[in-house]
């Protein structure tokens, strides 16, 4: 079959690019401040009312022992993330060998690589699509602060401008052991958290941010 250029079904690629550009510009304008670390606002709530039952403990244990990750490895740190899953450091010992292409089935987002403004709406979308409870590990210098590219014109200085980050793993890129240590830190944090947290009551900074992709949700 040949493509008939005059027919309507063929998209106008320039128009689609312009629409994408508008979303990026909107995102760029709306993310001036970085999101505070969840460690701060969850700890504050835990101090107020902490009730841990044995059921909570079981649920937390289940959650932390099978962290499934969403696929998000844009750049160099992806190499070390692959090495973490590869035989030498075997990530499946922690019940997390499964990488989910669909964010709906994932509960951990390991942001392995530089985030650019062009990519930022997509990452926010992945995060929004993940089911609660969800956690984020910022891997590498680019994930924490933009790293060597921070002064670049197309680079987001850290994932915490876009999404709240639970654990920061420094390094450029971090060794697989360093990442595994970060995952263990996250598991500790999950064990400490309330099993059924009512996140809507917490001062979630995400709710206050304008979401450029909210339009899509309504559809």
């Amino acid at each position, binding site marked *: 079959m040949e493509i008939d250029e005059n027919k309507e079904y063929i998209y106008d690629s320039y128009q689609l*690019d312009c629409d994408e*550009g508008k979303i*990026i510009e909107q995102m760029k304008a709306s993310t001036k401040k970085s999101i505070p670390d969840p460690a701060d606002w969850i700890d504050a709530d835990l101090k107020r009312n902490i009730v841990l039952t044995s059921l909570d403990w079981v649920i937390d244990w289940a959650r932390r022992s099978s962290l499934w990750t969403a696929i998000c490895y844009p750049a160099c740190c992806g190499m070390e993330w692959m090495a973490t899953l590869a035989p030498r450091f075997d990530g499946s010992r922690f019940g997390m060998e499964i990488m989910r292409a669909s964010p709906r089935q994932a509960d951990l987002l390991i942001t392995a690589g530089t985030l650019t403004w062009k990519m930022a709406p997509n990452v926010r979308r992945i995060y929004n699509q993940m089911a609660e409870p969800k956690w984020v590990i910022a891997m590498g210098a680019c994930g924490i602060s933009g790293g060597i590219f921070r002064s670049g014109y197309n680079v987001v200085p850290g994932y915490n401008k876009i999404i709240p980050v639970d654990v920061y793993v420094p390094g450029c890129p971090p060794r697989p052991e360093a990442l595994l240590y970060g995952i263990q830190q996250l598991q500790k944090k999950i064990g400490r958290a309330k099993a059924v947290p009512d996140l809507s009551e917490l001062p979630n900074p995400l709710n206050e941010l304008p979401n450029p992709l909210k339009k899509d949700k309504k559809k």
Partner: protein
Amino acid sequence: MTTALSAKEIVSKLSAEFPDAVKEAGADSVLVKSASLPAVTEYLKTADGLKFDYINYITAIDYYDYFEVVYMMTSTEYNRSVTLKTRCETRNRPTVPSLAGIYQGADWQEREVYDLMGITFKGHPNMKRVFLWEGFDGHPLRKDWNK
């Protein structure tokens, strides 16, 4: 060995073919007028004894007074290479004829130059941004571009 073909040799061949195309010939590069660029490259690609059939790269440099567009071609048959240069003097909408019809490899590289340096290639089939998004303000590799 990929030696840059001595400019004398190529200038003598080019000036015989195109009397007023070559502006000046440096030690390892030839500066041609932008209007005659497609004809010159077509000749370089097909003529016997030259056969520059492989394009290495296309780039542009901002010298404030003018933009210099640099092309490097290699002849895989004779294993030598040549650097062609052309200039456009205006800062506002500079234009250079496109080579996308002659070398397919030029297609995306010209788009890249347009995206980052803001030089339009006349005759290119799909002249739009390749790395940055539509609506990005300015062309970042220009020396006077600021965030």
